[in-house]
């Protein structure tokens, strides 16, 4: 087995956090994702999603913007540059594991 050149990321590898980062990285060119859309895409509950978003926000991997549309509160989430770089690095690590197992 060959050594990995990329580094794993414990914080991102958790199942729901990985899905959050995957959705945000795919949507990055179109701006932030709304909380409800992110919830639908990841299949998470409100509480679970909020908890993991806070963890990722504290790590500097995403930004959370809260405002109101009329009287309705709105929460939008966007991946940061650091978050995108960390996610890509972790993806590279995962692919290297698969590639190493195939050689």
């Amino acid at each position: 087995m060959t050594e990995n050149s990329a580094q794993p990321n414990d914080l991102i590898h958790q199942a729901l956090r990985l899905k959050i980062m995957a959705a945000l990285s795919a949507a990055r060119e179109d701006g932030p994702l709304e909380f409800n859309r992110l919830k639908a895409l990841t299949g998470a509950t409100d509480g679970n999603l909020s908890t993991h978003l806070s963890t990722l926000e504290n790590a500097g991997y995403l930004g959370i913007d809260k405002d109101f549309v009329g009287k309705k509160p709105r929460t939008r989430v966007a991946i940061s540059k650091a978050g995108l770089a960390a996610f890509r690095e972790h993806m590279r690590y995962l692919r290297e594991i698969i590639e190493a197992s195939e050689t």
Partner: protein
Amino acid sequence: MAISERNAAEALRDVRDVQRRTLLAKGYGLASPHLALSGVIWAAGYVATGLTPPETWPYFWLPLALAGALGSFALSVRATRAVPGDPAARVAPASRMLWMIGASGTFIVSTLLLFQPKDIVPALAFPAIFLAYIYVLVGAMGASRYLWIGTGIFAVTALGLILMPQAIAFWVAAAGGGGLLAGALWMRKP
């Protein structure tokens, strides 16, 4: 942290699945205003068709078709305005939209001219059947909401042909227009 090969494969599969659904949701969001516009034009055209004699139909269908094509072009340009890059490249999706509308319209008109249906009822139902066919094809390629919208439009149109052929224009107005408007609302949902 040690990640097994199996765990890595599962994680990559999850990522691909979420990214595919994210892009699909984006596509649905972009399609929603197009469906709403088409639904309004479709319903207005078919209600007018039901209320007026056949010789007057080109007078409102041609302007409606033109308004629909230009409206779709404008919606596509607006949707890509926020995307950075070459302005000419941003107009490309809008141009493709015009080509698709033009090709669909040409196909429907050509088919009707070619086969010259003696009965007006199937001629009025044909565009709805064709629309349903296109949506089912798009849906079969992975965008499942189109599949359901197309199936719904086809089923309601077929029901109209069987149950109320004498009021087919109004039936198709409700089936096509209503189906497209309901589809537009569904596409907006997360």
